[in-house]
């Protein structure tokens, strides 16, 4: 009898383990997310004074920091089912090459035609107390005096900036009052196939210049600093649909 109990416990634990790691459906595959940061279509180089980046207002600028969160990745199957991959939070930091290649695990096998995700961090984690991993406030993407994650941060310089040392400081975040949380969606040109054996790769290009054009033309002489609030919404509205370009990689 004792042996039966032991064996049944072992079977039970083992089964539980498989179910827990695979999210009930056992067949899942892996997707690599390869991030590339750009400015007006050319690769972003931090602190590069020879790059001569300019915004749509023809203000010149350099970039010293470019970081952003994406979270809550949802894939749409070719037969229109939405599959949200649990616990997907990524912090991409242009200064940290290891953050440019991320893994999306536990994607149910199948054919997918589109991807969507939040640019930023959802309410649950924003209002949910102390977090860890890429959401650890020690990563410097968290406001203490007005709690919440900084969804996107771009810092740099522009001769047009009226701020001290001609600095550019754009910190975008906030949900409750001036909401800057945006959902990005894009269809793939051809279906993405997820199999158990072979990982798939997606290229995600982010163009920093789109922060300053589109719905709201940003003139650095008038706006060189946002710390959440209404001005951060101007930037979020600009980049909402156009920050990323996604393609399937071979």
């Amino acid at each position, binding site marked *: 009898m004792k042996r039966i109990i032991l064996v049944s416990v072992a079977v039970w634990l083992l089964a539980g383990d498989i179910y827990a790691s695979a999210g009930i459906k056992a067949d899942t595959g892996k997707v690599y997310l390869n991030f590339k940061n750009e400015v007006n279509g050319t690769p972003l180089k931090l602190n590069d004074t020879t790059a001569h980046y300019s915004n749509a207002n023809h203000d010149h600028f350099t970039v010293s920091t470019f970081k952003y969160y994406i979270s809550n990745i949802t894939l749409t199957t070719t037969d229109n089912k939405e599959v949200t991959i649990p616990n997907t939070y990524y912090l991409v930091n242009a200064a940290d090459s290891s953050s440019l290649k991320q893994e999306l695990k536990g994607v149910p096998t199948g054919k997918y035609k589109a991807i969507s995700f939040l640019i930023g961090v959802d309410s649950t984690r924003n209002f949910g107390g*102390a977090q860890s991993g890429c959401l650890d*406030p*020690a990563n410097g993407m968290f406001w*203490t005096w*007005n*709690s919440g994650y900084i969804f996107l941060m771009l810092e740099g310089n522009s001769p047009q900036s009226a701020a001290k040392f001609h600095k550019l400081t754009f910190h975008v975040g906030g949900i409750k*009052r*001036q909401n800057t949380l945006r959902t990005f969606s894009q269809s793939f040109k051809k279906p993405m196939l997820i199999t158990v054996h072979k990982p798939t790769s997606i290229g995600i290009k982010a163009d920093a210049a789109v922060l300053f054009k589109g719905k709201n033309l940003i003139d650095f002489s008038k706006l060189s600093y946002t710390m959440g609030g209404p001005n951060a919404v101007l930037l979020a509205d600009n980049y909402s649909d156009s920050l990323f370009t996604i393609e399937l990689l071979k």
Partner: protein
Amino acid sequence: MKKQFFVVGAGLLFLAAVSSFSSNASGSADPADSLLFRTPKNFPAPVYNFQGNHLTEAGFKLGRKLFYDPILSSDKSISCANCHQQFASFAQLDHPVSHGVDDCLGTRNTPTLINLAWEKEFMWDGGVNHIEISSMNALTNPCEMANNLPEIVKRLKQSESYPALFKQVFQTDEINSQLFFKAITQFIGTLVSANSKYDQVIRHENGAKFTDPELSGYALFKTNCAACHSEPLFTDQSYRNKGLDLKSDDAGRDSITHLASDHGKFRVPTLRNVEVSSPYMHDGRFNTLEEVLEHYNSGVHNAPNLDPLLKQNGHLGISLNKQQQSQLIAFLKTLTDRQFLNNDLFKEPK
């Protein structure tokens, strides 16, 4: 054989289910309740119920050790307890504004740390949205403890005592800011003050009764103060302009909401232990309860967004004569919880 497997397996599952139910229900209705934290009979359910931060004696003690440890400040000179003193209801006696490292003076008065598990938002402007991260401001503010989270985590990892204590509490070799905040919260979240004379009167305990002046003061309180300082927490947790200045030099709630209509609004503070937590107001401008009541009686400025309750029928403030003021103060003193202020559990461990 197969059948036996199934029966035994199902039996185990059932046992597991029963034991998890009974551990949740141990003696009381609220899942937050434990020997270290109980919802007082006259309180509503707490906002924070230690979900995801299982409250244990070891966790409480670790939080308490951190709270009293100056290692958390940049120059290791001050601990949380420097500005949050138990005898002052974990506010800071005699200091109008907080006093950080390098003698830096902040801009706002240290708030009390009581009944935080019932608070939805923290700080005078309500900028902090969760108890677990409420200590982050003071730890990182250059004019308070002036430290940063990676440095704090590094010091804890390198210390002789903390790694073993964190492992005991969280069953992992890791120390990170999340576990640090959870540990601190096991201490500050259990600072429940609910055993004042007022509470005993309300709960009909120990034959407690108000004196005549206290009873008159309670009646005055209910008419004039309770709309904002609502029982039993003695705050409705709203933000209001109480006419301290015609134009506040501190933006207050406006700095969080970016709304001009919130300029100079501050959170309604609890009145529990108000007798021992002077000075008063967001900038500590008043030293005594008499001064506070005199402000409401005769000192209210007609600020553009003055709280409507302070301007009723065109009359500024709350008129109270000297006798009424002293009755009101007599009532306010029944909110002092000596048992809490002297509780050895909350003192610095020897």
